[in-house]
């Protein structure tokens, strides 16, 4: 390399001619891959059985939320309340064999439709196939939010403008997908020190986060960013950073039946949907998903999920946690930030208003 900068794959100027040929071939490959994901979703849809189908109530223009859950009853009251207040009109829920009565809790709610399955979460692409199917079937032409029951969606002005304001603005600006990075929030002290009560705002307990230790790389395959870091990388994966969980997410999409998520909500096909970041120096608008996993329930979950091995990387994360065991690692450190609001995340550079003002 010597005296000239080593323009990397991602960052360098590309040779146009060669690139065009490559990209034709690439597009074809991606197209196949997308079709395969859709076929797979259709096949996996046979594992779902509707137990509460209110989808007839979905009206054009409604904002939908799709999620998969297992034994998350304790989180549901606050979760539903939070997203209803934001302006979600209908919830499409896959219940992967909950035994805690979550389905009974949802029974009778007119804005919730529930499908049940006992099939393998892992073999359904960690639930992605099931949810891809539901979106293909019900979300065509809708803005749809795909989150886990322990994720709270934050976006610029979320304290004064409903979700509809955001989606209207995205529509007007011709933007189809919206990025919201996962930010792990954790309590100060032991995770089980303050038990979480149903209906409570989890941020009352877990309200600390890491503000400036994230690594960002670009995934050349799908063009999405690959973000890792935060307390989990710092405490559980310091020695094997490559295995640290991905934090980049694109949870809000104006769905089209041809779209498909390829791994959790980290990446989509067609690849254009992953261009949620600006490469020319500016900032696109983005939000955050506050990940409230680290409550007292985490310990039980860790034990259960270790046995099931149904999570990403065979639940490596739960394993790492369990290995630290009873000494209960402290995620909090003196440089942890206490969560205040979206403006704080904006100032810290974790999310951006872009040109929304």
């Amino acid at each position: 390399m010597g005296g000239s900068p080593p323009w990397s794959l991602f960052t360098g100027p590309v040779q146009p001619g060669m690139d065009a040929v490559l990209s034709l071939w690439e597009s074809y490959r991606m197209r196949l891959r997308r079709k395969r994901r859709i076929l797979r979703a259709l096949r996996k849809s046979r594992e779902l059985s509707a137990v509460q189908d209110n989808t007839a109530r979905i009206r054009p223009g409604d904002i939908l939320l799709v999620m998969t859950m297992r034994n998350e009853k304790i989180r549901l009251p606050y979760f539903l309340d939070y997203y209803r207040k934001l302006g979600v009109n209908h919830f499409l829920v896959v219940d992967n064999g909950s035994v805690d009565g979550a389905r009974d809790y949802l029974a009778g709610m007119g804005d919730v439709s529930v499908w049940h399955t006992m099939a393998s979460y892992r073999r359904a692409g960690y639930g992605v196939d099931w949810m891809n199917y539901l979106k293909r079937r019900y979300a065509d032409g809708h803005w749809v939010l795909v989150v886990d029951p322990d994720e709270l969606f934050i976006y610029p002005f979320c304290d004064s403008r409903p979700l509809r304001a955001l989606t209207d603005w995205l529509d007007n600006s011709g933007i189809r997908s919206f990025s919201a990075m996962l930010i792990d929030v954790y309590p100060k002290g032991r995770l089980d020190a303050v038990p979480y009560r149903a209906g409570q705002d989890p941020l009352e307990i877990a309200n600390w986060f890491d503000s400036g230790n994230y690594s960002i790389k670009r995934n050349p395959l799908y063009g999405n960013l690959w973000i890792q870091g935060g307390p989990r990388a710092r405490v559980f994966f310091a020695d094997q950073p490559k295995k640290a969980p991905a934090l980049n997410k694109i949870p809000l999409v104006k769905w089209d039946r041809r779209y498909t998520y390829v791994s959790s909500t980290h990446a989509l096909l067609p690849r254009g949907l992953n261009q949620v970041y600006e490469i020319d120096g500016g900032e696109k608008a983005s939000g955050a998903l506050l990940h409230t996993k680290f409550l007292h329930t985490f310990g039980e979950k860790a034990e259960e999920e270790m046995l099931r091995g149904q999570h990403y990387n065979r639940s490596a994360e739960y394993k790492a946690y369990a290995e630290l065991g009873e000494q209960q690692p402290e995620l909090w450190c003196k440089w942890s930030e206490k969560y205040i609001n979206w403006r704080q995340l904006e100032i810290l550079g974790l999310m951006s208003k872009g040109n929304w003002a």
Partner: protein
Amino acid sequence: MSTVGIVMLVHTALDRAEQVARHWVAGGCPVVLHVDKKVPKSTYSAFKAAFAGEPMVRFSRRHRCEWGTWGIVAASQSASEMMLAQYPDVRHVYLASGSCLPLRPVADLVDYLAARPRTDFIESATTADVPWIVGGLDVERFTLRFPFSWKTQRFLFDKYVNLQRRLGIKRRVPDGLVPHMGSQWWCLTRQTLSAILEDPERERYDRYFRKVWIPDESYYQTLVRLYSSNIESRSLTLSKFDFQGKPHNFYDDHLQLLRRSDCFVARKIWPHAERLYSTFLGDNPDAMKGTEPNPGKIDRIFAKAVERRTRGRPGLYMQSRMPANGSENGVTCNPYSMFQGFSELFENFEDWLTQATGAKVHGHLFSPDAVEFADRQTLINGALCDSTSLRDYNPKAFLTNLIWNTRGERQCFQFGPQDNQAINWLVARDPNAQVSVISGAWAVPLFRSNKNFSELRREAARLQQIEAKHIEVLRSRHVKARVRIWTMAEFVESPMEPIQTILDEFGAQTQRHLNTAPTMVDLAGFGQFLQNLKNQGMHPYLMGDFPAEQGPLNMPKPSRKPYLVR
């Protein structure tokens, strides 16, 4: 009846349009509504029926309005003609849209215009003078033809523009017209408006403007120059545009801003902004009587938003800002210093530098053995961790994170050829970086170590190679950092002068002259050490010429005080 008539172009959120129209009427202003032909008939009939029996509201002939095309001008023409014909008392016609919201009492606007009976409020500037054209078409708006829709036939639109450019086809601007452009929302006097609409040449002008790109921003703006004696080139409607030329929306949280802007009308209002509608259409919006519109603060906020979108925050890398090489607009966000060879040459250089400057001085942040944060903390701002594997997983992110997390406080760190070199280009390209290198100083720890000579020789060769590469980078023509490189021999001769220069650059807080000096390590025998390396066939050249003044290593030598630099 008031002397101000409102022409309102409506295409969506008809309920809001109705609300606003009623507000104008309640204020005594007649309203002529134009409803886009794309609105379904049933919706239109219902909308029209809502105003049945209202003498102050009329509906004009409907046109198809597509953005950037003639339809919008045709709509405003029809509606204006109707206004002038049906309401003879009207002196000023105000063009508004369905998503416009009056911010001040209607009477305020009426009084304001009554006090300026001959003034036409229309933004009108020649193409050469407007900076806000988005999309690259300026003069060409008037000289090319645009038969294809930009929104739905983008491909054909672009191709046809290119074709015309290539063939050099140009339309002639009708005689007597000088193309002007400006905001499409105007307020014209009956005299001027009727002169435009009743011009015997109108047929010809219309034919020309039909194929101009975005004629609603140029039709009236150009023609008004023919007739008006008194143009106030500004719009009374507050309307801000983003970097793509789309209008910004106003939401409930803009309430106070809009209130203080003293503008008469704002657009666009988000249809669900309940608080804005209920406040400004309510009975008693705060009276701002007599004041001139003053949208300065709103201007600044929206200008900032555009800047955020197009330039971003320097030195920030995040989920929605991942600039490519060269497009960073600031590789990092704050000045910092990289010192190479200093901690090798001086005893306790870090402590001394901390005392001398008050900056945050780290050790070798990129050492293979440890991340040496200042005071050897395990974590630092932003919960950045001292794990070497996390750092080496993404060294550039580690550095940019560190600088971002500590913005406002200058960071200094030690560097050397034994450290992770992955950041070299990033630092070299960074105007915030101050890089000071004493080349060859890596040999000092080898010289002082107690290792076998063959091992030392191998290590010296390796480090020299790495540092040579690094220096090559630092001397490249792409370098933007403030780079200073001395050979060790050069530096040892008069060390204080370069140090003073480096620290002077730190800024005001360190302007004081240095009163303590760092202590240099004992270099007695170093020349001979280098000579020995040479004798073994390894040629150390980065440190410059050190005379082997001491003779062979095993010769007894007079003990000597360490260099104390004053």
